[in-house]
């Protein structure tokens, strides 16, 4: 399984979470891969895609702060509802 396939699989697993769908009005079928999720209008979906893209084999605890600031900043700017 390629990296892209693994990312898509995880994306679909997370986006199919009932609680998340309900709270943030997500339609998982709109997002077939990580790229479509990265360009989503839904801030939570894009944030999830950023997390999946950001965590790789080399990711360790020292990278956590940087990724948190990225998603926090993104949500701050885009989480309007």
């Amino acid at each position: 399984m390629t990296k892209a396939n693994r990312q898509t699989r995880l994306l679909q697993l997370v986006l199919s979470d009932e609680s998340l769908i309900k709270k943030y009005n997500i339609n998982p079928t709109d997002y077939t891969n990580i790229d479509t999720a990265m360009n989503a209008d839904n801030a939570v979906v894009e944030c999830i895609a950023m997390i999946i893209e950001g965590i790789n084999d080399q990711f360790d605890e020292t990278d956590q702060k940087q990724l948190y600031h990225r998603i926090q900043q993104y949500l701050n700017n885009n989480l309007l509802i």
Partner: protein
Amino acid sequence: MKINRIEIKNFRSYFGPNCFIINSGLTLIIGANGEGKTNLYDAMEWLFENRIGTDSKRIVSRKAIAVLNPGETDEVMVALDFEHNEAKYRIEKSFSFTKSDDDSDIRISPISFVGYEEEDSGRCMTDGVRLLDRCFNASIRHFSLLAGEESLKILNQTDTLKYLVKTFSSVRNSEKYISFMSFASQCAQRAEQNAISKNSRNKKQADIKTREINDLESRLRELQSQLRNKQNEARNYATQIEAIVNSSEASEEMRSLESRLENLRAERNRLIGQIRENYTAALLDDMYVLSGIMPVLREFSDKVSKAERTRRKEEREFLKNLGERKALKKIKLDLENGATPLPVYAPDEKFLREMLHDHICKVCGTPAPVGSDAYRYIEAKLNAYLESLKEDEKEEELCFPYNFIEQLSKRETIINNERASLAKTFQHLTDLIEFNEARKKQLRTLDDNISQVEESQRKLQARVPGVSKEVLLNNFTNLTNWNVYKSECEKKIVEIEQAILNVEKSLAIKREELAELAENTPAQIYTKISEAITAIKDAFRRALKKNETDFIMELERVSNEYLAKLNVDDFKGTLRIYTDISGAMRISLVDIDGSPIDPNKALETTMYMSVLFAVSELTEIKKDDEYPLFFDAPTSSFAVGKEKDFFNIIDNLDKQIIIVTKSFLKEVGPNEYILDQEMLNTLNLRGSIYRIEKKKPFDDKNQATIQTLISRIR
């Protein structure tokens, strides 16, 4: 990874260069015991094992050493040509050895492990370890090389399946996601609390809520830590129980041996207690010192008895002779007409001598000149008288005039009484010595038996490495204890999980209350961000859990497909893979009603193999990665028919599998085997079949004469 070729040079019995060409499907390598099966397996393990600490000298072919002249050099080499992701590679592990000048030893060089990649420009050399790890990851190799049926049980060890899920399921780095989301969620909540506290209108209330939230979070962390500890504890207990159950047969045998050993030792002590060897004190106390006189006394008694018998015999002879003489004399004295003769002394000696002197018989008056009849008559009469005098003297003589023999007899009688008493004492001594010797003989037998039992115990322990004799002996006691501990632990886990749920509920309420304080304030955005990140965190947690569950279900489904294929027309039950309360994953077989099945060895083997094949298949699907499986004697417990079906099925699995086995051989003499062609013809393999056997002749006491020969049959 697909193996194309295995090369072995001077590795144990594989003297000189040797090669196996490996195709897709099943490759069978057939050889009897001692013909090189395990050496081949060990060669593969040596190649795949990256540890350098192996004693290299021990793997050098003795024959290769023997044929070298002092100072000459040769090499040990195991190499693999393989394909991976449509590229061709070779890994080669080797070292050289040089025979010492005095012919007594070899010197070896450091191990070299190189890899080769075939590129358009040609062959490029690279680091062998890295190439191997890249194409055949160590975590996969762990499930690729398996020796014997027992080794398959690694699949049911506490952490193995968990490890498999983490390694082979669709999602990688799941711990990293969990860890990051926890971090992000905590940061967002802290930011939210800070923002709310900065708002002076709600500051006091916000501080109270924040403290309450902090307390609850602290409690939650404490409970989560307790839960992890308890889950670890439960896993440890499960591991212990598993080890005990796995060794229950050995445990039973060990207890039986120990019981026998105790009885033997008790009997030994009893015998030792019975032996009384205080001979020295008894020498004088019990007159044992005189034991040597008994033969002398017996000889004395015999001699006296003999003398006594001789005396009586002679005396009887004497009396008999005496009686005869007296009777004769009486007869002689009788006259012809029966008249009573005169006594022998009438006339007496004086008158007879006078008549002879005077030459006349003074009884009848007949002249008796010298030489006349009358003279001779008187002379005979005188002689008869004188003779009678002598006989009387004789008659008074005793045969044994001195009673020495009687005295000896009396003394002998006295001594004999003493001797009987001494004999009793000495008999006691003889009996004691005999008794002691008999006990000592029994002791020697017992000691032999004890040694045998102790040896059996040592062998038994070798069968269950890592489990001490004490653990084996106390198996059932421990099992009861571990079950109680595990059960208590599981109860505690349920309690902690409930407590965590309660704390999480309270936390959610408190956070909502805190969020309400942020409404219509600048802090509201922080609340929204915190809520979103927490929601994402929970979604990730559930997604990863689902991924794990899906993988297990998929593994279970595929495993059951393999189980069905490997057990056509046989009872097999259903394979279940589940997570127990401690978080450990388990494999078992259940009946149609869900009750657990205790499988026989062959079914158990196919159960584990099914999971192994399923893991391999899922690896291929999930990781775009295939790898070969190498089994050493995996079908020892299979019946002949099942084994044939098993190999045919495996050949059709579209997996590269190499099996070394002693099947398909028939014994034609002591340690003499030939291929069972009839049985072999029932196999319908796509892959290759090799026969390995020792080159003949060889000396079974000289390793330098041993060489494995390889011949391709199909």
